[in-house]
């Protein structure tokens, strides 16, 4: 079983569109949408939900107002400014609370309790050519790194039990903890970038992160003909670091138009389709 992760550093590079294209081209596989903060993959792959699992994670403090003597000790020790006072009633701002538990420790009147809040739900679903695992977080919910780990683990179990050779992971943007959780244990990371100054800058940062985990990575240039000079800069960077370029996708408004009408990148134009197929062939060959 092989694990392919698609990341981009910068959002809006076409990562999800390309991931969906690769998924549709694949044989029986498991696909995971690890972009749990803003999941979009389900809008193209139309999964039918088979199982829903509630997700509780981290900790959050709660003040029992009956026991609280308003001494203010909790507020003094909290480094996250999560303790609020209104009319001498102490409460916890759940958005700000990091769940460290120091207020619970310091409270002399046993008025603070830590609880594990519900952060969202995740789903195991069927798609045409396999299984899909995806999630929905609650408003302002944090801790997506752990959720990424949970859903990835489930994908591995399914792949193992059902003899599927490939797990495809749509990674989140950025270089933070959900990205780290997404790429850990991967066999190959595909970095989608675009020939823009931001695209290049973010590609370099995500590349450094992947390198620090010693995972092999390759690059795909989306909107490759938008700015030839910037495309050249990406190629130079790739050359210098010895990163293979697995494909180029030309700028084509029909890609967005396909997405607007709920169709995949493969239905955009014949040229685009061939470009995605080439990336797919390169991926399959290398893993």
């Amino acid at each position, binding site marked *: 079983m092989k694990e392919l992760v698609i990341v981009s550093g910068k959002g809006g590079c076409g990562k999800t569109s390309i991931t969906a294209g690769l998924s549709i081209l694949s044989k029986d596989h498991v696909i995971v949408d690890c972009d749990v903060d803003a999941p979009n993959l389900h809008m193209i792959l139309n999964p039918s939900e088979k199982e829903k699992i509630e997700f509780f*994670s*981290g900790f959050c403090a709660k003040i029992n107002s009956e026991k609280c003597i308003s001494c203010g000790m909790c507020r003094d020790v909290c480094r996250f400014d999560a303790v609020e006072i209104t009319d001498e009633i102490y409460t916890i701002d759940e958005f700000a609370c990091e769940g460290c538990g120091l207020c619970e420790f310091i409270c002399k009147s046993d008025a603070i309790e830590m609880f594990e809040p519900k952060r969202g739900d995740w789903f195991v679903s069927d798609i045409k050519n396999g299984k899909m695992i995806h999630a929905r977080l609650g408003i302002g919910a944090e*801790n997506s*790194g*752990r959720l990424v*780990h949970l859903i990835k*683990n489930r994908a591995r179990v399914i792949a193992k039990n059902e003899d599927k050779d490939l797990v495809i992971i749509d990674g989140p943007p950025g270089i933070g*903890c959900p990205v780290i959780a997404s790429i850990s244990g991967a066999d190959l990371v595909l970095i989608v970038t675009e020939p823009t100054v931001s695209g290049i800058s973010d590609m370099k940062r995500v590349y450094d992160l992947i390198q620090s985990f010693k995972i092999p990575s390759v690059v795909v240039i989306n909107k490759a003909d938008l700015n030839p000079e910037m495309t050249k800069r990406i190629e130079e960077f790739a050359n210098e670091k010895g990163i293979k370029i697995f494909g180029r996708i030309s700028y084509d408004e029909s890609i967005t138009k396909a997405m607007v009408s709920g169709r995949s990148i493969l239905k955009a134009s014949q040229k685009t389709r061939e470009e995605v197929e080439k990336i797919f062939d390169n991926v399959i060959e290398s893993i």
Partner: protein
Amino acid sequence: MRIAFPTKGKTINDDMEDVFGRAEGFLIFDTETKKVEVIDNSKNIVHEHGVGIKSAELILSYKVDLVVSKNFGPKAKDVFDASSVKTFVTQKKTISEALTEYLNN
């Protein structure tokens, strides 16, 4: 010698888990008394980060001399190295196979 293995099982004929840090439990085998002890790790694996460290800490508290696993995360390895607990990497499926492999080496 006391040897720990990551596993969901209760006997040495059971399979080992693939990832050390996220194992649901551990089995400790004492080579002198031939006794088996099972420890529960489910409390540790719910953490978002540092599960390998926490699992290693739990094992340390059971005074083992050696840990056998298919792999170790860098932090778990670090904890064992710092505590002079030996580690042994195996590709065997079951605990008894891995044990035999280690003892034969």
